[in-house]
């Protein structure tokens, strides 16, 4: 099992960032994918509840099951399913308040096969940078923090 984690601090209220991150249908607003389709409450899609399809620029499509969408915790969890390569997967995005006007966004993935976790981590890193751009561009240009300060961790369970 490969486990990776990326994080970034954003100078915006956690609730505001969560409005975007906590909406499964808006993943393509900040994550480097080209398409995102989720089940709608009004039944306007054929997808069953708690299911999402995402499309990558290469044309690959992934079917995902939404595991957790907790607006109180500000936690989103999903799992890639029905994929011939992915044996198990859990992706977690947390938005954690750090005061009234700053938050930490953390994206972690546990994935088997482990190599694929590295691929997801790279995309997650870019997604977090895009989030930073989206919210920090709304602020004055003299903001002190920088998207280059993205944090990263990876390990394989059982290696320690």
């Amino acid at each position, binding site marked *: 099992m490969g486990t990776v984690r990326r994080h970034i601090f954003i100078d915006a209220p956690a609730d505001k960032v969560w409005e975007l991150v906590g909406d499964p249908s808006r993943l393509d607003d900040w994550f480097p994918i080209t398409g995102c389709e989720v089940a709608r409450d009004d039944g306007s899609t054929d997808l069953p509840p708690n299911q999402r399809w995402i499309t990558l620029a*290469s044309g690959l499509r992934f079917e995902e099951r939404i595991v957790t969408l907790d607006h109180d915790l500000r936690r989103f969890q999903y799992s890639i399913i029905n994929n011939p*390569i992915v044996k198990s997967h859990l992706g977690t995005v947390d938005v954690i308040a750090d005061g009234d006007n700053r938050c930490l966004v953390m994206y972690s993935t546990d994935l088997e096969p482990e190599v694929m976790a590295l*691929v997801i*981590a*790279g995309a997650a890193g*870019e997604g977090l940078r895009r989030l930073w751009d989206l919210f920090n561009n709304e602020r004055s240009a003299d903001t002190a923090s920088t998207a280059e300060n993205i944090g*990263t961790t*990876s390990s*394989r369970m059982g290696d320690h």
Partner: protein
Amino acid sequence: MGRKILFITTDQQRFDALGCNGGLVARTPNIDRLAADGINYRRAHPQSVVCMPSRSTMVTGQHVATHGVWMNGVPLPTDAPSVATTLKDAGYSTALIGKAHFEPFLDPFLRFTENRLAATGTFQELHDGRLHRGFDHMESASHGATGSFHYAQWILHNHPEAAAMYYRVLDMELQVSAAGGGETFAPQAHDNPIPREWYHTDWVVDRAIAWLDTLSPDADWFCWVSFPDPHHPWDPPSSERHRVDWRDLDLPDAYRVDAASREAVLDGKPRHWRMWYDGQFVSNYEAPARWVPSTLTPDQIREVNALTHIENELIDEGVGRLLGHIERRGWGEDTDIVYSTDHGELQGDYGLLFKGPYHVDSLMRVPLIWKPAPSAGIAPAVIDAPVGHVSLASTFSHIAGLAQPEYTQASRLPVSESEVRTLGHERVLTEWDSVLFGKIVRLRTICRDGWIATACLPGTVHDGTEGELYDLANDPLQEFNLWNEPTHAALRSDLLADMWDSLPVSVAHRPVDAPV
């Protein structure tokens, strides 16, 4: 009209692969002629022994510590300096045809230009109005017919039946495959029924010629022709297997047939050597995670070597075809040709294959030949001083009549022994950093005065006290590690002090964005 530059690289080719460097099997008359008519550097080292960091040094003229591509999977920033940009700004037409690999391959999100170009069927991308890495034309290939490369697209559209003929490099878990093939079941050996004219070596030559044919006769140009071979998988067209019968080959000098003797050599080296041999520690993605080197048989080594020699012959014939075309275009007198590779291959030495954190000649000593344009009037020479790829960008700029770019960190290659000192070529440095799911290996190496010293920095298996010290004159196979010999302690200290004085301060490690 200035001098044109043909830069030819291979991937994972040993110094001794070529006839001009003592190779006795593969026939490489075209490259040998370049060496005879030009300058053959007999102690050239890459600044990393894996692809992305090494290639990033070639294009930036910087050490790994500075360009920051510290391992495969870390992209070279889009705004990193590029000698192709420098040449483009000087009026050159610029192309890179074949394997680029400044950016990760394995990225289905297509976040990187190299992959995007092939996916969109385009050949250049602009960033803030500037060509990506300074190339007018980037046309990519890799080690097979899958992935987001122009060659894979070409196969898909013209010969789709050939896509599955190649060895499948990744297994179902996306690990570098350990599956064996050929006649000995050697890892990554494979019978490839693809017709030779569809094979990527010939395709790279075809595409380079096609690009050259777009240029006017008086154009100045820089063409980087980058062959994916002889990097594994070892799957040249089966029609060419008759060239070398593996049964006829001698085993490498650095392969001791007796297992106890072979393992004693490994035990004299830092512990990551023996741990990999025994299958206990695979530090880097480039080596198959599920292959145990101690299972490697002498016949498997022979077959891998035979297939490599065949691939090298095909490269040489491709080089001959390119040179013939340049002559026919009337550019022969004014074209400089530089030939090298990104790093070597263990190819059976010490009972090992592939590559990794092993700073010995198998991986570090690479072919490097510069045949200056005849019009430059530079005499042929053999240079034994240590030089590195870090000098390539300065050399290309020099050929173009430009000053050494400020972003580069080494002077141009010397063309005579007398220039060795004046240009400061006393030492060459190589770095290794890898972090793979918590496994950390970090090496720093200096080669100077006929010695190689490698410090193993603290990591997962090293505590910072281990290292390697080899006397190249008396131990050309680097079998006897003198690191802990009291009689060599002062020399070791002197070499390491020089190494730390000479290495630039490392930029902060950027995240790994993909496995490779």
